[in-house]
């Protein structure tokens, strides 16, 4: 058995462990992305539903104050409705950004994990190479000379 064979085993085990950890993390990221996507969609649906259901009471409140009616279209009402719709849009935009950030963060995490795995394997290869060279050049059997 050569020195290379002697030291490859441990490094191979380390590499296999890293790959396994990487896969587990990848699975976790995929699950997080899926769950995040579902959660974001549901939340945006809830926001939309909340604003749509609140639109009628909003119109009723303007009517009770005489700011709205069958022949009444006041500026206050229009401004109020524009703000109400803008708030809905803003809430949807914030949730969209949150979902995008969450998904992209999962992607970045996945990328970083893959990069770390590649770097770790390369580091292992370099360490193994160095150890083989060190072992080969130590020449313990001939140190007496």
């Amino acid at each position, binding site marked *: 058995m050569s020195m290379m064979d002697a030291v490859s085993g441990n490094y191979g085990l380390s590499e296999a462990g890293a790959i396994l950890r990487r896969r587990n993390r990848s699975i976790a990221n995929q699950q997080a992305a899926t769950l995040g996507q579902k959660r974001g969609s549901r939340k945006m649906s809830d926001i*939309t539903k909340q604003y749509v259901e609140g639109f009628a009471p909003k119109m009723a409140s303007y009517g009770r104050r005489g700011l709205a009616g069958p022949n009444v279209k006041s500026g206050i009402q229009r401004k109020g409705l524009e703000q109400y719709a803008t708030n809905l849009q803003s809430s949807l935009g914030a949730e969209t950004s949150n979902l995008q*950030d969450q998904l*992209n963060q999962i992607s970045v995490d996945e990328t970083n994990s893959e990069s770390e795995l590649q770097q770790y394997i390369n580091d292992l290869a370099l360490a193994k190479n160095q150890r083989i060279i060190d072992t080969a050049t130590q020449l313990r059997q001939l140190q007496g*000379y």
Partner: protein
Amino acid sequence: MAIQYVNGRLVRMTDEEVQAAIDAATGPTADTKIPKGTRDTLTPEQSKSRAAFEANAKKEGEARQLAEKNRLKEQTAWAKKDADNDGIPNGIDKTNDSPPPPAGGSQNGNTNMAKNSTPVKDYINQQLRAAGLPDTPANRAMLRKEYMEIQADEKAETIKADAATAKIDKETTDNKAAFDAIMKSIGGYETRAGTAKTDAMKRLADLYDPQTVALGTQKQDQLNFLQKVLGQAGTDINASEQNFLSRLINPSAYTDVPLIDMPQQQNALMAALQSQGADTGKVAEQSASDASMNTFMKQLLSRSNTQYGNAQTNYVDALRNSGMGAAKSGRDYLALEQPRLASGINSKFADALASLNTNRVSSEGDIMETFRKAMDDAASKKVDAETDYPQPVATPATPSMPTYDDTPVAGEVDGLTPEERKRLKKALANFGGFGSRVDF
């Protein structure tokens, strides 16, 4: 043979001619007669001169007598030693094939001597003639007695010389036996020392040679292992680099990121608002403002993602460069380490080998030092033996004895006196640890 001054010149004369001249000039012969009454007619001065002349003549006669006596003595002694008169003593003359002298004949084997001419007669006649003595029985008896005394003295001298020679021969023989025994023991001692040295060297070789070979093998194994390890390390680095580059993920997370720009919700109150005559402009204005904000947020996120993607691309480029740089550094390090480690291995094993060789040389030095001491001991004992038991000059001072066996010298050594035997045993027992001990 002599050189004489005759009539103003030097003349070579034989001994007989010299003797005849002396006799003619000084010695009165048997035939010399002094006329009666002549003495009485001499004046006192003449008588005194005559007496002086006769005294001198007598002294000269005695001197000649003694010289002749010595000559005959030497001749006789030499004749005994040299039967064939060839100048070589009988003891060492291997060519002496002359027949032994006949019983009662001449002692020097001269068979040409006349039958009536015996040594004693010759001696008496010669002495009478030389001394100018009258040929009377008394003189002859005196001279015969003198001759016999001379012969007895010569015989005694001969016996004494023979005894001395025999003693010398015996001492020589004993010395040689003792010397040979010591040399034999020394030879065995040297042989055992050489064998012990060779065995010790072989044991050292058995101990160190495998280690030396093992060191070389281990070094080569380490070098091979080094190459294998470095090769495997380089292969691993290259493979790791390729694997790293192939598995490096280009950033795509921030490309085509899904972003939503949500549309504005339709306001359910618009119809009612218009029926009441209210203005719908504000609602439309609010819706447009929200839509604009959503579009802006999406664009902002999209732009951020683009920036993140660019940053990730730059980061991955940095990772790629880092990985490739680390691989290059690893390869460069291995390329630098290879010669250093190889040098370290070679150096370490060279040190180990040097240490091993140092120990081996030290051990070999100890062995050689022990061997050298043994050889010095043997040489010293040889010198002692040559001093205690001197050998003839013809005998080599340091005889080579490589073929001596190591049989211990035990028991009695023939021909030695108790004192010599004791001294020999002591000398043999004092050898080093390589020699066998002699039981006392």
